[in-house]
């Protein structure tokens, strides 16, 4: 056990920090759930890629730096420390890319990853269907192989980023007689294909953060299949693990929220201390954000030594999502009557971003498998308790 950074790691941190200082836009970008904001975020991805910072763990041939997970964590710390924009292509770089690395052909990697890195192609995810929310095995959308094309029909929903994105990845039922998690295939679909209709779904803040997608005889080349036909479940499970696990929710995000929460508390301590639950929550936020960080470094160290990610991806997901919700609720409590004000309200006096974060935090315990599903997984797969 050695919990100090090496000289190289410290130098790397300095390099990231300098680049971020020089390049992170001074003014926050607009929300990427608006057309203008989406474009701004796409440009930011290009800027990042120009500096070869798009995804530092990727091999150099795809625009990465071939770095390890500890370096990735350092990168993320500096990224959040610099208040850099949220990654508009996170579906691509954090979810699809690791799956591609594992299941994609060389041709697919070469075709997809570089454009993902530049932000030229932004990815949406197509997991859920109207009757298959947290129950992914209930998927009904079909893909029928005719010659070297799949003909896709059906409907996806809760597809994040789909309103402005270029591509979608998801599972489709290729064996019409199959049930549950059999007979599914993982397919990549260009969102500008004929027969696709995207219906935006406005979310709590009124912006279309996700969409329903209707497929009417959409033709997709067989080259866009990831893994073998009928192997969709296996491929998707890898992605689900990434999503819940290490990559998507780096500790830096929650540490920065905890830091801002501590600052907010200190700035309003007199009124905040009227409610002892606030101080309790603030201290707990720090302790939990640190615990999440330490645990992630532990996992990253283990993975660096060749370990595999296990059911802890479910404990991670429950932990960070409920921590995030708790921290933002606490900020609302500290802000008191100001908490309800939208960021542009003059009386919000610059604290309105907490409300945005609070609304966003409500989605954490729900998406990527509700926390109820995650707790089932923890009980059954990690603790070995009997299934219902």
């Amino acid at each position: 056990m050695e919990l100090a950074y090496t000289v190289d790691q410290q130098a790397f941190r300095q390099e990231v920090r300098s680049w971020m200082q020089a390049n992170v836009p001074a003014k926050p970008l607009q929300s990427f759930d608006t057309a203008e904001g989406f474009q701004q975020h796409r440009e930011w991805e290009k800027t990042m890629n120009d500096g070869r910072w798009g995804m530092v763990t990727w091999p150099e041939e795809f625009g990465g730096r071939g770095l390890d997970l500890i370096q990735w964590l350092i990168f993320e710390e500096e990224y959040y420390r610099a208040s850099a924009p949220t990654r508009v292509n996170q579906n691509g770089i954090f979810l699809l890319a690791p799956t591609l690395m594992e299941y994609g052909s060389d041709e697919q990697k070469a075709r997809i990853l570089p454009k993902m890195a530049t932000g030229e192609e932004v990815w949406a995810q197509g997991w859920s269907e109207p009757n298959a929310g947290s129950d992914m095995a209930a998927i009904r959308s079909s893909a029928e192989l005719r010659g070297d094309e799949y003909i896709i029909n059906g409907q996806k929903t809760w597809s994040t980023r789909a309103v402005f994105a270029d591509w979608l990845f998801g599972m489709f039922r290729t064996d019409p007689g199959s049930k549950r998690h059999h007979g599914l295939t993982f397919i990549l679909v260009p969102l500008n294909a004929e027969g696709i209709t995207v219906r935006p779904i406005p979310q709590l803040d009124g912006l279309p953060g996700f969409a329903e997608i209707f497929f009417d005889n959409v033709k997709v080349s067989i080259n866009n299949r990831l893994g073998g036909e009928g192997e969709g479940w296996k491929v998707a499970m890898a992605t689900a693990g990434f999503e819940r696990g290490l990559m998507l929710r780096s500790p830096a995000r929650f540490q920065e929220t905890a830091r801002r929460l501590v600052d907010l508390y200190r700035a309003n301590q007199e009124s905040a201390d009227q409610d002892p639950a606030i101080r309790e929550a603030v201290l707990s936020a720090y302790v939990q954000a640190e615990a999440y960080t330490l645990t992630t470094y532990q996992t990253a160290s283990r993975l660096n030594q060749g370990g595999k990610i296990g059911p802890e991806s479910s404990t991670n997901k429950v932990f960070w999502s409920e921590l995030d919700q708790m921290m933002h609720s606490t900020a609302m409590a500290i802000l008191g009557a100001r908490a309800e004000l939208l960021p542009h309200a003059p009386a919000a006096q610059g604290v309105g971003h907490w409300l945005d974060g609070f609304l966003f935090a409500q989605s954490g315990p729900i998406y990527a498998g509700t926390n109820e599903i995650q707790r089932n997984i923890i009980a059954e797969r990690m603790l070995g308790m009997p299934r219902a």
Partner: protein
Amino acid sequence: MNFTFNEDQLMFRDSVRDFFSNEVTTESIRNRWDSDSGRDRALWTSMAELGLTGLLVPENCGGLGLGVVDFIMLAEECGRVALPEPLVDTVLLATPVLVAAGADAQLLQSIAAGETVCAVQSQADALVADADFADKLIVHKAGNLVLLDAESARFQRQDSVDPSRRLFSVEWADDEGQVLAEGDLSAELTASLYNLGALGTSAQLLGLAQRMLDLSVAYTSERQQFGKPIGSFQAVKHHLANVAIKTEFAKAPVYRAAYSVAEALSDVDLHVSQARLSAGEAAILAAKSGIQVHGAMGYTWEMDLHLFMKRAWALNNAWGTPGAHKARLADTILSADYTIGAGHTFASASDAA
């Protein structure tokens, strides 16, 4: 000792519930969002015709001459439908204060008639809800309680997360407005107003909690996942059972607080703060559990749940934050002079009787 509502009170509650369920649909609320005022004047007139706006106005001024206890379940109904119009502010907050300040009969008559809508500023917070829809504002200046014509004030809109809320910062010239009360009377009425505001907020939070619980039960009983309604899963059941428990145990404190306000009991501050904390916790839990059991649907603009969640989030910090009410409660119960424990719950009521 009789902790029940009488038949008249229950019937009035039922008829208001019926009226609201027809007239204040979630669709009608969504329609208001796009309108300039965000409010429905015709509805106000209908409420006046039902006797609602004049409920606390003395009979000799054209009102029903009823009291705070008679209105409390109606305030709860306002919460249940997330009523955008400031009925609670006009009836429960403004009217008693105007009466106590000796406001002229004409004003009270026009409130009862539904011609005058009131907005009320809390001493705890500068912004005034519904200032632009109101005809009269009760505001604070230099220790005085001031009655202001809406026309003579300047408003700046302050958008809330709840699109039905219309909040404003208000400014007015020093020579505008009529001093309702000054000195000790102002202090007394301001304190009374704070309790009325917190009580009205409590009742609305209670109604909101129940509505979110109802919506969540209905949704999870219908919505199928894994081949059965998600409401049949124990995790979902227990989320909503917890909401039911918190809500059940928030009711009596709110009704008791109404009684204590009505009777001006010596413990009224304590009772109002208890009610406010209990109702706020119920509503906040109902929102949190409600969105969770709705899954992604709960996160959408299209589902009605957010109308009630956002109102709950907003109201939970109105008329005193939970912290402010905890502090007030602590000042009393941790004081060496105050006795708590078995037999003391109704002490101030019994002493006053």
